[in-house]
């Protein structure tokens, strides 16, 4: 869940207009969450909603006198490996879920990142499953298919009036009624408080291998990634480390293409991929896995204290032009999703922010300010503004779920 964790701004300059000093409630169960929301609604008190507080540095700081933590609403409630379904209370640490899945050789297909280091969070681990869903965070495997929001089969949540409600369920195909699961995924706790998540999970692959292919520059890199992704070989990761950026001893500029599947398939497909894209070398097993963990967590960006971080989602074919534009203002970049995801680190100034916004627009995509000093977070749009007709719908949908406007006010937009 998005929120205002006490520790969330460690390592980020400019602390703080945040509410860490205010009162803090950590109910033990869903009924307690409901009671806390009912009280806040009745008293007219805004609530900062958080899971384990690891993503507090994202987007805008919430102005709220009271923090509602889901930390104690924790634990796996249902797991059926043969049906590929797991349910857990929102505050359950991601590590706990991943460990339970690993025991049965399964995993969360969307590969949610661990952004603790990037966001300067300490003590929260990889965050909570509720937080991952509320932020709709997905890793490198997103390019091959599913985002976190695609894997949410069901949610239990408390709306802004304190009602305990459900959407979706525990089955894989369900089109019954409006899909509030998707609406709440990525809404950063501004519409409702997620209390339990049911996810579709998938088998862990028998084998993984990565083709590391030296490339001249971003343009050539994106072409190579595209060649991999448009091959019939089921590439599940397509990232690029530019010149001067390295991860686990792999030095840019390189394109990275990952295969994951049953033993024989990975062997065969890697051979074919190497024939189509000659000149690279192959990393296997643990080496491959460690490299993709680094890519997933944007670790190769090596962000310095005081720097701002943006994440751009763009049309892959426009990625290299976007990179050139970002370079010209002194920013550092890293590419994932075949060029469709551009991580950017740069000076935390409004001039750089303006340039990033313009670059995202020209690249036919969106941006999210992932990390910046507080004075910047409150003074710039941290996600793109909506056109007036959509902004009006946003306000009406917000009012439909949280009529008093109590939940995470100002988290995504000023005054919203």
């Amino acid at each position: 869940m998005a929120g205002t964790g006490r520790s969330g701004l460690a390592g980020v300059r400019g602390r703080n207009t945040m509410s860490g000093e205010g009162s803090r409630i950590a109910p033990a169960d869903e009924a307690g969450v409901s009671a806390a929301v009912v009280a806040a609604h009745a008293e007219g008190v805004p609530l900062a909603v958080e899971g384990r507080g690891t993503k507090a540095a994202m987007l805008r700081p919430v102005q709220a006198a009271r923090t509602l933590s889901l930390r104690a609403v924790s634990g796996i409630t249902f797991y059926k490996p043969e049906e590929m379904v797991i349910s857990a209370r929102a505050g359950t640490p991601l590590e706990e879920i991943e460990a339970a899945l690993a025991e049965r050789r399964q995993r969360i297909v969307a590969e949610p990142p661990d952004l603790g280091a990037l966001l300067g969070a300490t003590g929260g681990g990889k965050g909570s499953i509720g937080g991952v869903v509320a932020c709709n965070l997905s890793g490198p495997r997103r390019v091959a298919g599913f985002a976190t929001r695609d894997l949410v089969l069901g949610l239990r949540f408390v709306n802004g009036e304190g009602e305990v409600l459900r959407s979706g369920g525990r089955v894989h195909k369900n089109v019954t009624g409006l899909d509030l699961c998707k609406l709440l995924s990525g809404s950063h706790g501004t519409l409702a408080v997620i209390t339990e998540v049911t996810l579709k999970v998938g088998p862990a692959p028998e084998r993984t291998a990565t083709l590391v292919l030296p490339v001249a520059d971003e343009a050539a890199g994106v072409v190579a990634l595209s060649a991999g992704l448009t091959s019939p070989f089921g590439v599940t990761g397509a990232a690029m480390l530019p010149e001067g950026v390295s991860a686990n001893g792999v030095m840019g500029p390189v394109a990275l293409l990952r295969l994951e599947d049953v033993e024989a398939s990975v062997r065969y497909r890697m051979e074919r991929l190497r024939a189509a894209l000659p000149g690279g070398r192959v990393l296997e097993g643990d080496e491959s896995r460690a490299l993709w963990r680094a890519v997933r967590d944007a670790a190769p960006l090596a962000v310095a204290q005081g720097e701002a971080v943006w994440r751009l989602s763009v049309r892959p074919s426009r990625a290299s032009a976007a990179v050139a534009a970002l370079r010209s203002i002194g920013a550092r970049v890293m590419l994932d999703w075949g060029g469709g995801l551009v991580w950017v680190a740069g000076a935390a100034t409004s001039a750089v922010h303006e340039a990033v916004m313009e670059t995202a627009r020209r690249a036919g995509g969106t941006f999210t300010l992932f990390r910046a000093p507080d004075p910047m977070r409150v003074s710039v749009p941290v996600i793109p503004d909506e056109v007036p007709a959509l902004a009006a719908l946003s306000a009406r949908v917000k009012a439909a779920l949280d009529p008093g406007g109590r939940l995470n006010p100002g988290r995504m937009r000023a005054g919203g």
Partner: protein
Amino acid sequence: MIALPPPKPEVLARREEIVAGLRALVPGEGVIAETLRLRPYETDGLSAYRQPPLAVVLPTSTEQVAAVLRFLHENDVRVVPRGAGTSLSGGALPLADAVVVGLMRMNRILDVSFPDRLAVVEAGVTNLGITKAVEGEGFFYAPDPSSQLACMIGGNVMMNSGGAHCLKYGVTANNLLGVKFVTIEGEVIEVGGGHLDAAGYDWLGLITGSEGQLGLVTEVTVRILRAAEGQRAMLAAFRSTEVAGAAVDAIMASGVIPVALEFMDKPCIHACEAFAHAGYPLDAEAMLIIEVEGSGEEQDALLGRIREICERFDPISMRVAASAEESMAIWKGRKGAFGAVGRISPDYLCMDGTIPTSELPYVLRRIGEMSAACGLGVANVFHAGDGNLHPLIMFDANDPESFAKAEAFGADILKLCVEVGGCLTGEHGVGVEKRDLMGVQFTRPELQQQRRVKEAFDPEWLLNPAKVFPLEGALAPPAH
């Protein structure tokens, strides 16, 4: 019978004026108001229900759709969106005082980009039309509803359509990048585009599967995927549904996820075999069709593993296709299942619940008992990997009693699906058909919450009324 709301007399009285207004916005052949020419629009894939609309309008551009919706909104006229009219849940069933806005004339493919792995198409392009436009380069659009030859992408988005291959590739919602969306006020809003992730609320996710309750989709950006090197199917027949269900669980738990995993029960096997002569085993109680992808050697390896798993369940017979032609022969019966049942019964209702796959044997046994109790036959075909059940209830539409029994039987099956942890609809949508069952799956506050979200888009309840939500409270703002 499902009740439809009374028409608004003031709208019926102004029919000519409304038709003239529409003709001013969509010139030429774009407005249909003659009784005989309205006939094709009086029903959809749920043909037991028929109601000619006030008029039909067939715009050719997003601008025309916007102008039409603005005009209808200003005149307090109800709107029923329509693609190809293949909905099996009555999603496109008209009302007497409603104007059907049909998108079939918007059928252009606007852009295809292989490097960006996307296609931008108008809402009236058929599902298969997208694949046809990109298959020359080895690409395809993944969701494949049985009606894919006819059904249109705009309708697929509205209903979040599935298909036999969504076990691997997901449903419509998982294969979209953006839509152009027109609100009831006539505002045109672009959501998403050529990029993967939205910042801000997931409008694309909310609109997908909204069954025309929130607005109309006129343009869609879909992901296109490079096809695997090949695919091949096998067939495995078992002596009981329990054993076949256990085999499904074992396959899913093995870590090898097939591209498709279909289940047919004995009545369905017999109906399909009589129709398609696919060589199905008539002595089996249940049969699985399993398809895998990859190169020839990969197919061999995967089918070998699945074969080994099936062997543990003492199959009556197994048949692994040796070629693409043999695969097609295996699929032939399954693909013709609905038509096959149509041959042995004057009419059938196709149900669409989803259940947890482990409940399959129990649910099939209960369906068998219900079938015996009400005296109507049922054939079951089932996307086994994801638990999406399609019981085909056989009845005679000329016999009102038979129809009433069939509807009650269908409702009982869907209630059973919810009872065992599933849902009312996996891919066909609620439409008018399952509207009154929504209270079985959702609590009153849950339905009220969905209604409030609907009202954020359509405060006057003009968009596709009498669908999705139980009629009480579905046509007027609920009391908060």
